[in-house]
């Protein structure tokens, strides 16, 4: 696909803010999402991702600022914005006692989808998602992955141009997650815009663009490669028979940044110009971990995320002092 010089924006938000009592959930947030993007929202719990998505979905009124969905204001022109939006909330929000087919039918009808179109769309969606054979089953008797797919299908019944998905795969098994993302890839291919909040770093890698949200603001934004490039230093893996002991020892080394367990290895960020092996191995041996090996690895989203979260926390603390 050739990208136009200035792509039309699916979402434009300026100075968006929302508080709940004393808690500031989103503060003075600016956002521009080009049409056709798969836009990932990353950030720790309580960063304001859900609040942002709910404001964009018109279910929550912003205290300050403005947001537009394809040029339609979410505050003053909700009636025009709503038909363009498909919103999937964080928790299961369908009728548990209704069947798959009845849930699809109901939400599509309330959305004004005509009878013949309803039948055709639900058939297509259920078949493409592998739910067709369960269409008579009550939603409460579905597995976690099937529930999420059903919710996605429900939001797709009226063919929205913008999908707002709030952690759609949280608590879903890896196979179902992969399948879910296969469906999203198809939507992306059709030219839909997807904004998805996710706690999973492998999902972030699948996005065309990601924004790192913390403390109600977008701290960084770019392609996954650009976000990873924000991290100063290189990523190394430390292998040891006892990775937990190695982690404890590495935490004591001042020149090692954000050490964390990654499977059976410890990943560390190395910001010095020289190679870390000659300094880490002896230091670990002195701490009792004698079998340590160090090898270089490609920067991953998890480390970038951890680094960005830590530095955001530090700068916030510095700001507070």
């Amino acid at each position, binding site marked *: 696909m050739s990208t136009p010089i200035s792509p039309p924006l699916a979402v434009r938000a300026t100075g968006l803010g929302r508080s709940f009592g004393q808690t500031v959930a989103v503060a003075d947030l600016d956002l521009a999402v080009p049409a056709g993007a798969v836009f990932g929202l990353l950030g720790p719990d309580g960063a304001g991702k859900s609040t942002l998505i709910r404001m964009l979905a018109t*279910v929550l009124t912003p205290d300050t600022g403005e947001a537009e969905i394809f040029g339609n204001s979410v505050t003053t022109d909700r009636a025009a914005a*709503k038909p363009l939006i498909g*919103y999937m*909330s964080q928790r299961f*929000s369908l009728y548990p006692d*209704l069947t798959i087919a*009845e849930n699809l039918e*109901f939400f599509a009808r*309330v959305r004004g989808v005509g009878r013949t179109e309803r039948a055709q769309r639900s058939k297509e969606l259920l078949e493409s998602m592998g739910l067709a054979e369960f269409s008579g089953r009550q939603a409460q008797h579905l597995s976690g992955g099937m529930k999420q797919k059903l919710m996605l299908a429900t939001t797709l019944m009226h063919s929205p141009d913008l999908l707002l998905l709030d952690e759609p795969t949280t608590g879903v098994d890896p196979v179902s997650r992969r399948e879910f993302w296969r469906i999203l890839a198809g939507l992306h291919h059709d030219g839909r815009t997807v904004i998805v909040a996710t706690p999973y770093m492998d999902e972030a890698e699948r996005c065309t663009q990601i924004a790192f949200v913390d403390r109600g603001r977008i701290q960084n934004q770019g392609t996954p490669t650009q976000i990873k490039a924000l991290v100063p230093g290189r990523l190394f893996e430390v292998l040891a028979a006892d990775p937990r002991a190695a982690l404890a020892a590495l935490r004591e080394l001042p020149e090692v940044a954000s050490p964390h367990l990654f499977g059976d290895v410890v990943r560390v960020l190395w910001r010095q110009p020289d190679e870390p092996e000659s300094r880490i191995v002896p230091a670990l041996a002195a701490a009792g971990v004698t079998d340590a090996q160090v090898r270089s690895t490609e920067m991953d989203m998890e480390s970038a995320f951890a680094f960005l979260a830590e530095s955001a926390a530090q700068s916030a603390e510095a700001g507070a002092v």
Partner: protein
Amino acid sequence: MRATLDRIAAIVVKEFRHLGRDPRALLAVVITPVLQLLLFSYAISFDVDHVPTIVVDLDQSTQSREYLRQYQASSFFTVVAEAKTMDAVDSAFDLNQARLAIVIQAGFGQQLASGGQGEVAVLVDGSEPTSARISQAYSVAANQLYNQQLTQQWADAQGLDLSSLGMLEPRVRTWYNPERRSSDFLIPGLMVVIIAIVTVQQTAVTLVRERDLGTEEQLEVSPLRKGELMVAKLLPWTAIAFIDVAVIIGLGRWLFGVPLRGDLGALALGSALFVFAALGLGLLVSAVAPTLDTANILALLIAFLPSFLLSGLAFALDQIPVVLQWLSYAFPARYMVTISRIVFLKGGGFADVWPELVALAAYAAAMIAISTLLYGRRAAR
């Protein structure tokens, strides 16, 4: 307009599906009203007859036995025991064997024969005030009757014709419910209470449930308007409440023989408006209650107590404290109980109940408007 109707239809269909999937809810709205009617009608009876009575005849004379015969003959009293001492009265009251005691003092016959005052003590067990009051009234009446008989006997003995003597004879008649059967009086009112319980309770939880399920947000992103949602939530329950009304009227007529003398049209319109008013009240609860439990309890408080106590059903409205009288205007039950009784018992029609119909219509409109407004404001959060 078509889109509006289609959205409303979608919700109505969905509500009936919920009901169909939940046997307990179905039971609650169809079977419970019938059970409530049967229970209430049999349990709450203000009819007093066959009052268990103990008689203590300390005189044992012809006169005393004659006097006591009227108690044995009357269906108001059932003589359960004849005792010789006062102690027996105590124990009979204690054991709940008797509620009324008639004690004839020694010398009763002699006194009467000598033209003096015969003394009869009437003791009433006051632990149940209503039946105590009525038993007392009965026995006073019985005594008056006996007095008249005595006077008649005396006059006959003296060869006097009392018909030439001017005597006051009150002729008391009870209109609308000549036998003063309490079921005639109760069932038209009970119908109101039962409908209030079913409707307020069910609608009170309906919006809260949408919120709990998270479906509220999904409806929020749709073009569905708040007013449409409210109307769509009301319609299924209106239909069900009407079935309940029909069942209760049917049971009342065929099982309890309650007459339906007035205009059925006025009763139907009144019921429709009352159902809307009660549902509106339920929606109001639903719009403000934070949790399902709160909604349930609030609904019970609002539906049951005022409709029972402040509607004229249990207590006549002009006999309750003034503050409560004012308060009773805040609940729709009082208007409907009035309509119901006027139509059932007094044979009234539109001409008689229009003020109540207008009040109910205004009440229903206000409730639905207020709850729509409150619900909208909550959703905007």
